[in-house]
């Protein structure tokens, strides 16, 4: 397995896609979540159901959408409903198995920040905001988080808690009475983390090929824990890589970008 074979972003995308079971109903955001979910659909999970917050249910995009409401999503969906209906009947209605989220910051209990860096009133960086994240974090049966690992992103204390993971850990989330079970995995370019069953603290469960514990610790703003047993993530299979690259290539062409060489 040579490092030249695939990028760390590809590894992250492939690892995330593998978490989606065939037939699962998946609430998909734009970017990495959408890429990973469609990779799953085009490989091991042909019957996965993709729901986009703009309204498509059972979307089967030919190319990855650039925006959450691309026409291609509507064209080949099982149905397209209004955005209020998506949030009311489908997400809050308890029909979403996996909610896929990214974040600017995450803490050790998988709470996330997508609102501001710095003070809320006078932010140093104004981020896009909540989007559907607070509702996804509350209502999806399971949440998978996907983001690149760095000390700026994996922080000791969030600048702002936009969407709840396990709050202060333990049974804190359970006590909030939210219908969803919370984050089941965090997939990064370095590893895959799972919440500890009792404490709910994120714990490294798999290291991607060639990644060391030291690299992971360096990219984390708190003292990261490792599971008793930390297997290596299976490297992307040839099939996974081919499908992923084809998808990204035809996406770039369709959106009028010069495809990467």
């Amino acid at each position: 397995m040579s490092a030249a074979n695939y990028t760390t972003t590809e590894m992250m995308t492939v690892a995330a896609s593998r978490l989606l079971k065939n037939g699962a109903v998946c609430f998909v955001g734009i970017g990495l979540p959408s890429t990973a979910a469609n990779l799953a659909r085009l490989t091991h999970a042909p019957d996965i159901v993709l729901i986009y917050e703009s309204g498509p249910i059972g979307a089967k995009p030919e190319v990855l959408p650039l925006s959450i409401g691309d026409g291609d999503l509507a064209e080949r969906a099982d149905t397209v409903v209004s955005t209020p209906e998506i949030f009311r009947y489908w997400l809050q209605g308890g029909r979403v198995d996996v909610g896929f989220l990214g974040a600017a910051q995450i803490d050790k209990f998988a709470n996330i920040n997508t609102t501001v860096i710095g003070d809320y009133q006078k932010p140093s960086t104004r981020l896009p905001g909540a989007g559907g994240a607070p509702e996804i974090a509350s209502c999806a049966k399971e949440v998978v988080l996907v983001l690149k690992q760095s000390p700026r992103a994996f922080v000791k204390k969030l600048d702002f808690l936009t969407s709840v993971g396990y709050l202060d850990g333990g049974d804190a989330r359970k006590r909030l009475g939210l219908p969803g079970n919370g984050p089941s995995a965090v997939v990064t370019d370095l590893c895959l983390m799972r919440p500890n069953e009792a404490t709910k603290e994120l714990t490294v469960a798999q290291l991607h090929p060639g990644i060391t514990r030291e690299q992971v610790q360096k990219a984390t703003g708190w003292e990261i824990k490792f599971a008793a047993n930390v297997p290596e993530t299976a490297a992307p299979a040839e099939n996974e890589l081919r499908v992923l690259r084809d998808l990204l290539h035809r996406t770039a062409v369709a959106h009028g970008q010069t495809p990467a060489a």
Partner: protein
Amino acid sequence: MAEIISLREAIGSLLRDGDTVAMEGFTHLIPFAAGQEAIRQGRKDLTLIRMTPDVIYDQLIGAGCAKKLIFSWGGNPGVGSLHRLRDAVEKDWPKPLEIQEHGHGDLSNAYVAGAANLPFAVLRAYAGSELPQHNKNIRFVECPFTGERLAAVPAIRPDVTVIHAQKADRKGNVLLWGILGVQKEAVLAAKRAIVTVEEIVDNLNAPPNACVLPSWTLAAVCHVPGGARPSYAHGYYDRDNRFYQAWDDISRDREVFLNWIKKHILDTEDFSAFQRVLNESTKEQLV
């Protein structure tokens, strides 16, 4: 009954300084022509509501039309930040912008409550989130049957809602299809609604149970072909992803932005003149 009038007349007579206005369209059918006409007519002190502010509100905010923004996700979809929105929030330029932020489920429920003439909506969210600490319009209520604690948000009732749709008939009945977002709810929640359309036809030929807004729910219908560009109109034209990309450069710098607004919006007579000038600019860039 909707009057079928020009966009200039519609914005001129129905959208006033200080109004609360919702221009909706979830990536699809964003009413860009109408937003730009508000800039052209120099509207001031608007409270802007929109789930996804997008480039349309970046233009309005940068041009100084807004005093407040109610939103749930403010980015340039597929590209990155909305630089004018950030500049207003981070540096008060061109003026301070008060913000009130929600989640998508929350705002879409708030539109539903507005359309249903209820004062508030109830949803399962925000337990554990810090958003309620910074937004006094997110509260909690108890279910009178189960005692469960649920989030509550006030209904949205805009003075004016503006949307773009595919078709109207000559009576002003409007048909839209594809990704519908919250447009129907935003129209029904508003005191006055303006709809720009791709075409006006003799017969809508709407499929059964299609999304039709009867003429009598609207104040004005305006024939503005291409009025959703650079977003898209299903069945008419695709999203101009290149423009969204280009906006990142145009909007990053205050001077470049102001020049763009002047040349393309303030110095053009209407949306078709805007499109001509924009096409010329684009050609120049490609040379």
